[in-house]
């Protein structure tokens, strides 16, 4: 019995290490990043669009807007696609096709992001430049690459949500004379709504946090974009681009950027958690 207990303790300790590292990361980022907030002021750091580390100007606004543009773009392109795919997989797809489709979608998640970025630079950006104008490396290119990258996340989670709806809902609806599509649209989707929303939020988290592919395809100019064909810099690319050389206040500002990013991701994850919780309660 004693041994059982000690093993239990060890496992508990190992399980807590995740919590411990999360705590450590939080403390570290906030410790390093807080300085810039105190020196420059919260409002100026967040809402000034001037970013010129050489001239001691640190304002994140254009990058916050940039992250938002790219993320929303990714959701606009990616979410409808993934919803159709997951509805098809859950309700309409013959088993044989599902056996090929599902692993293929999961494989999409395993491709390294730098490969997506490379494809974006070599194929997507020239196409955009040729047919739509602008420099090609743009909000649109970033959104399209990210849209493909969030597909696996959104599809698999919303698929789970749809499949978790009790079979009796569908059967009841069909028994009342509704067609299959009507039943899916009017009964199953509303029933799985909270799960689907959670999947979208998690996909959003992935889109906000993605770095490598976005650096490669979005041009990285520090200015607020007024159209989807303009280049843009996101919060993550800002850190990755400049950390190599940053010292002193510049470095603090990059940690401040990390802090802003951390807070955004936390908010998104908590929101996703609340939505999934609601599903369980019902």
């Amino acid at each position, binding site marked *: 019995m004693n041994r059982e*207990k000690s093993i239990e303790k060890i496992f508990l300790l190992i399980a807590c290490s995740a919590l411990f590292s999360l705590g450590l990361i939080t403390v570290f980022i906030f410790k390093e990043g807080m300085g810039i907030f105190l020196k420059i002021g919260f409002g100026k750091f967040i809402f000034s669009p001037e970013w010129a580390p050489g001239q001691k100007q640190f304002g994140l606004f254009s990058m916050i807007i940039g992250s938002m543009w790219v993320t929303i773009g990714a959701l606009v392109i990616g979410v409808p696609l993934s919803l159709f795919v997951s509805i098809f997989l859950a309700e309409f797809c013959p088993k044989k096709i599902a056996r090929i489709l599902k692993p293929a979608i999961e494989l999409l998640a395993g491709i390294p992001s730098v490969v997506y970025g490379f494809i974006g*630079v070599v194929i997507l950006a020239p196409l955009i430049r040729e047919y739509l104008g602008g420099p090609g490396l743009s909000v649109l290119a970033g959104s399209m690459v990210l849209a493909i990258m969030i597909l696996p996340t959104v599809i698999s989670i919303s698929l789970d949500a749809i499949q978790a709806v009790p079979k009796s809902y569908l059967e009841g609806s069909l028994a009342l004379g509704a067609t299959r599509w009507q039943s899916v649209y009017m009964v199953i989707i509303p029933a799985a709504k909270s799960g689907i929303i959670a999947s979208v939020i998690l996909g959003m988290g992935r889109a906000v946090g993605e770095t490598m592919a976005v650096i490669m395809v979005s041009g990285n100019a520090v200015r607020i974009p007024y159209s989807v064909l303009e280049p843009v810099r996101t919060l993550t690319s800002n850190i990755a681009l400049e950390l190599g050389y940053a010292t002193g206040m*510049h470095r603090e500002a990059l940690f401040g950027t990390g802090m802003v990013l951390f807070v955004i991701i936390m908010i998104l994850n908590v929101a996703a958690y609340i939505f999934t919780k609601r599903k369980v309660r019902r």
Partner: protein
Amino acid sequence: MNSAKPGKYLQIPKIKKPRRISQEDLGKVLTPCNLNGIILKMLKKYFYIILFVLPFISCDKGGAGKALVIAGSTSVQPFVEGLEEAYSQKHKTVEINVQGGGSSAGIQSALCGTADIGMSSRHLSAEEEKELKIVPIAYDAVIVILNPRNKIENISLEDIRKIFSRKILNWKELGGEDKEINAITREDGSGTRGAFQELVMKEIPISNACMVQDSNGSVREIVKADPWSVAYISLGLVDKDVKAIKIDGILPDRAAVKEKKYNFMRPFLFVYTGELKKDAKDFVDFVLSDEGQEFMEKEGLIAVKHLM
């Protein structure tokens, strides 16, 4: 916690004690054809131990202070790495460790002794110059490049400054086609950007609206693909897929640089404090030897002797 209650684990069947291998079993097991299996099993068992311990052991050997550390500018790094490779083929006993980190980091680590030699691709400040010995190992020039599809061959210095400060936005204004100029710059803090700012732009700041790429390589890749782009890279990295443009009528090729007609040059430097160790001195001598300098020339840089 009430996990200690006796009833809780009742469903779990008793675990059998692992069977001890007796002497006669060993005789059975240790036939030659089973040997492989046993070794494999042992390997599996100790795999993680090997995995985690080995690196530390090997670290100990390398980190004993024998290896020569050269750190600094990422622009200089690939050339020194190439030189190191050539050098260590002849001198197998010397271990040289080439690291990046940027010019400032290189100067700093030479000052505080974490590196034997620092690499810098920019001039040193007066203060740094006082404390460090400086050896130029080659020269590099900053070259403005265009896509070969772009018809423009010559831009005045004034116009280049206007392009990168976003005063000129369309190729039409320079006599080209009616297309927007996609100016590409390097990230803040990059040595190449520093050189471009200092040599070409002078006091005029590079606009934030320029696109940013984080290495010479990706800048070249973008210019290769985009006919309406303009950017600047190291002379050593210009290839036939991009077009170097004349600035005020001077074609920035190697001849022009050597004759000092093209002025946007920066030195690649080794910096160090005090006396060099014998190994380090040997390597620096190799870099400055005809063989080392020829290597630099072949890689696209300008040898020291041409500009002394």
